């Protein structure tokens, strides 16, 4: 069994539990520097030029910083999305779509896009106009979860991480860690 999550999270038997799981795991990234350094090491292995990038731009988050959880924007029916949140410190949104595994293949898709809303109803104190969001589609297993967390970590860690940087990492992770014989040429 995976030590990060149990079978009920994978199968989405309780979508509220799955939703809370994602919020907790993302917020843990704010303060768990041991995990953060482990992720940065792997990111550098995947894309060596990011070593200098990490040296020049420091990690910005602390436990006291907020993570907005848009309660009205996640869907308890089908997990599409299972979590929709915003990190005001680094001006970043995250939308996670989770589905129960259909087979044993690794299913992790991701991209960055401009947020379709400015979240003005949910976060009146912050101006999120023009923010970008990392979108993740995941069918959970230990490998897809690990790389989803690495993508989230990188995305929220520094304002200096631009959408093009995140896309580089997504491409590298997808092509070298996720893509299998079953994957399509897209």
């Amino acid at each position, binding site marked *: 069994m995976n030590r990060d999550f149990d079978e009920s999270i994978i199968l989405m038997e309780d979508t509220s539990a799955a939703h809370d799981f994602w919020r907790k795991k993302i917020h843990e990234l704010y303060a768990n520097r041991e995990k953060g350094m482990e992720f940065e090491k792997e990111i550098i292995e995947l894309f060596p030029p990011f070593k200098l990038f990490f040296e020049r731009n420091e990690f910005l988050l602390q436990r006291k910083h907020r993570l907005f959880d848009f309660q009205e924007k996640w869907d308890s029916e089908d997990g599409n999305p299972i979590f929709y949140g915003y990190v005001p410190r680094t001006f970043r949104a995250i939308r996670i779509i989770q589905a129960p595994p259909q087979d044993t293949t690794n299913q992790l898709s991701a991209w960055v896009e401009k947020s379709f809303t400015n979240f003005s109803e949910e976060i009146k104190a912050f101006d999120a106009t023009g923010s970008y969001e990392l979108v993740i589609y995941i069918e959970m297993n230990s490998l897809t979860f690990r790389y989803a967390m690495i993508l989230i970590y990188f995305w929220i860690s520094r304002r200096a991480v631009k959408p093009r940087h995140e896309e580089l990492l*997504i491409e590298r992770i997808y092509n070298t860690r996720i893509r299998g014989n079953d994957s399509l040429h897209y």
Partner: protein
Amino acid sequence: MVKKMTAMQTVIGPTHRGRFQAQGLSLEESEAWAVPIPPSTEEGEAMLLKLESKLEYRDAKLRKDAFDEAKNFIQKSYKAGGINAVRKKTFMVRSTRRERVDVEILNGAAFHLVKNV
């Protein structure tokens, strides 16, 4: 006077906005609505069909299941009383990095009725 007209236009202008999108590594097609009456399920499905017909055969075939899921979403929304909030649903093509069909309700409501008279 100018201000008054602008306010008036706002009142009578389209209040229900949204779009269907087919996106991917090298694809970005959409079918949008901006109307004074919320789109019905029939109109929603017609827009989805129009979007599908805009795509090349290969892109449409790849997204067949995603389009079916988007259609099911319209029907499920109708059965639940329609959509009254800003919402985005993404229907993925499995085993791809980013090929998908999106449904965005950007303002107002949608899919309350089967047919608008």
